[in-house]
């Protein structure tokens, strides 16, 4: 007998959420969604959650199991049992709970809307299809598998502290157009995506890749947008300057010049930004956290330079 510890919340009855345990024998081959349905249909009809296709394509049944966002229909229930034969089920994170496992998706969709999620072209289309090579198709193939389940959004570490961040799903959707050979707003798109809340606010933790139930894998898509932004010369922002400074430092010395990176990220002419660094610098100095003032190269820096040369950088 397995225990399903489900986070319950119904503000019509009780303002605070609480946990309720349900005991269920997991049928052979049952998914988490099968079990949750069994609980609703035989134990407690008030249990509330979203679901529809039960084949991992509609994206309705995202919920947290044992602390991580999952599609309930995609996971075999037995694979989620902890050592006490328990599965803890909670609503997705970074969104306001509505009732039990249902959360408010409106802010999520508002952010998707912000990235102009549609093809933009200048010319009127040809009589037949626009051509696109198989290789060009592959550039957007992964991003186009996104089912908007919100799992990445739920577990995104940036969103937990900054709700202005567009979030992994919206940015992956952006890559689907940035990378589309048919779209004619690439520069405009990457310029907008380089603004605060955009690609450079991602901390590269990779959590969204872990949570994505499809090949969309947002962080890899965000990296692809970053690369296009740099190629297109959209450098006038902290994120791009940070990345470029990083590369410059490694290329010249084989290691990071931690004193220069914050300065170069802010930009030499960004007086206000540079002034903001002073108190942080002073505090670091007092705590003896300042790296050596004289930056030394690593011994094998020649090899590092060779790598850059090989890569044509």
């Amino acid at each position: 007998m397995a225990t399903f510890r489900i986070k319950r919340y119904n503000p019509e009855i009780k303002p605070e959420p609480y946990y309720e345990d349900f005991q269920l024998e997991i049928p052979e081959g049952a998914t988490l969604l099968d079990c949750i349905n069994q609980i609703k249909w035989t134990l407690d009809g008030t249990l509330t959650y979203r679901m529809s296709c039960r084949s991992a394509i509609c994206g309705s049944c995202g919920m947290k199991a044992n602390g991580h966002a999952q599609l309930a229909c995609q996971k075999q229930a037995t694979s989620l049992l902890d050592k006490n034969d328990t599965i803890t089920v909670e609503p997705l994170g970074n969104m306001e709970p509505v009732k039990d496992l249902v959360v408010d998706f409106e802010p999520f969709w508002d952010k998707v809307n912000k990235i102009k999620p549609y093809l933009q072209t200048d010319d009127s289309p040809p009589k037949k299809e626009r051509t696109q090579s198989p290789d060009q198709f592959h550039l957007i193939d992964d991003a186009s598998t996104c089912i908007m389940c919100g799992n990445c959004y739920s577990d995104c570490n940036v969103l937990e502290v900054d709700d202005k961040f567009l979030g992994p799903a919206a940015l992956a959707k952006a890559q689907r157009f940035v990378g589309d050979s048919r779209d004619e707003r690439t520069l405009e798109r990457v310029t907008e995506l380089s603004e605060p809340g955009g690609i450079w606010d991602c901390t590269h933790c990779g959590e969204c890749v872990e949570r994505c139930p499809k090949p969309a894998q947002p962080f890899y898509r965000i990296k692809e947008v970053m690369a296009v932004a740099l190629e297109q010369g959209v450098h006038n922002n902290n994120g791009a300057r940070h990345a470029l400074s990083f590369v410059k430092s490694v290329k010249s010395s084989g290691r990071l010049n931690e004193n220069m990176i914050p300065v170069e990220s802010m930009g030499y002419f960004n007086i206000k930004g540079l002034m903001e660094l002073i108190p942080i610098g002073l505090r670091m100095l007092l705590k003896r956290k300042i790296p050596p003032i004289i930056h030394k190269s690593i011994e094998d820096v020649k090899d590092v330079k060779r790598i850059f040369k090989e890569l044509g950088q």
Partner: protein
Amino acid sequence: MIKHDVVIIGAGLAGMRAAIEVSKELDVAVLTKVYPSRSHSGAAQGGIAASLGNSESDSWEEHMYDTIKGGDFLNDQDAVEEYVKAAPGIIYELEHMGCVFSRTADGKIAQRSFGGHSKPRACFSADRTGHAILHALHEQLMKQSETIKIYNEWNMHSLVTEGNRCNGVVVSNVKTGAVEVIQAKAVIFCTGGYGRIFKITTNAFASTADGVMAAFRAGIPIEDAEFVQFHPSGLYRQGILFSEAARGEGGYLLNGKGDRFMEQYAPSRMELAPRDIVSRAEQSEIDAGRGVNGKDFIHLDLRHLGEARIMERLPQIRQLGIDFTSVDCVKDPLPIQPTAHYSMGGIPTDKFSQVVMDAQGTKMEGFFAAGECACVSVHGGNRLGTNSLLDATVFGRRAGLSALEYARSADFAKVNEAQEKTKVLKSFEDIFQRDGSESYNDIRNEMKDVMMEKCGIFRDEEKLKACIENIKSLHLRFKKGKVTDKGKLFNTEIYEILELENMLEMAQIIATSALARKESRGGHFRSDYDKRDDKNFLKHTLVHGSMEELELKYKPVVITKHKPTERTY
């Protein structure tokens, strides 16, 4: 009272395509009980048919003939002709909107083979074509978010009609439970199918006959309900879809002895015969004890395709197999069985998506329908794979255009808001008040079992009569249930109960139509009348009346170019 020039119920391919058309001139709203991107169109995998001729020469004439032969000559041929002619244009238009398609080496839209099609004409996006089109259309709606209002997570309960004129719908907001009337000059239903009536089905939980039954209660007959398609490759026990594309790419069907049994049933098309034939062949093998290990499943074998081709063309299938059965189709065959998939029947419309009320074609003014909920009928007795996405987009567009033309010159009719609201509130209240001991879950499970066993792939008079009796008694028990969630906030329990009622009534309509059709044609197979009977049954069924007294009428099939001939593959 909410007011829109045109209101569309359902945000799948048909609903969204219709909305784009209407929004060119008028104020339009789309109402969905989920979110647009969660619509069941997104579950379609293999492709969308059009005679583009990108990999082999092709023509609309061949597409037309294949569709009619596939439908066992029950299709209305005038509608089929318009439909296949419109196909290439609708594909190019989707491509121009930004839809992602797999490509040929020279950059054109790639096309592959599919059951019943004599040419490779399935345009596809790997094995998630419905998903690609659904998102492309949703992108267009987001682009027009100023002009197209979307009601996410709202249910539709009834049509507001007066005489032969449709004036709006009664709906409710899932989040708040509030019941509202939407007054409209025209209403378009794009509410999808009703596969959830059957135990084993590919359909989403949302596919529950809401639209079809709302139309029926407003006096619209249901056409050809007995024609339900069973898809040959549903995952064993779960029923979830493994695309026919797996066979289109060269997959084999093997019985328990390891034989490619389709040799015995359709030697010229083998695994790529139309779905009704392949599903019956599978069921025959299973019934004869030739399932795998004598069980009720057979094998879909893709191993000879190799990992590279599977990953390029069928990546989602592979993942589904791994996630749901721990079978990696690169290494092992997949366990499959026939699964209820598609309703050929539905709300009768003409080829302009105008809903008609009888065999004479009397219009329900201001009411249109498209996609799976509608019966045009372009699919006849059996739909070919990849023809449904095409149906949804072609007739979605057509419905949008027709509604626009109608609403352009129509006025809002008077609607008695209080009266319409009260009717729906009363049906809610009725369920809330019940204090019986019957379990809705048991009733639902029994309905699904009964329909699968007695109104499934092989039917006969005895089974169907028993089926109707069973469903009627379930309906009586349904009235003695009890609801546990009495709140207004996001009460999914009450909606599931309302859906169950729709399904019970639809089940009775399906079985009643099936009992009366004493022949075998397309997806409808009677063991006691195992031949097609053109003399008596080359006609469409129309179920009129009320649940207390269903009345069967018929209307002739429109035949223009192709006289019915024997159907062999």
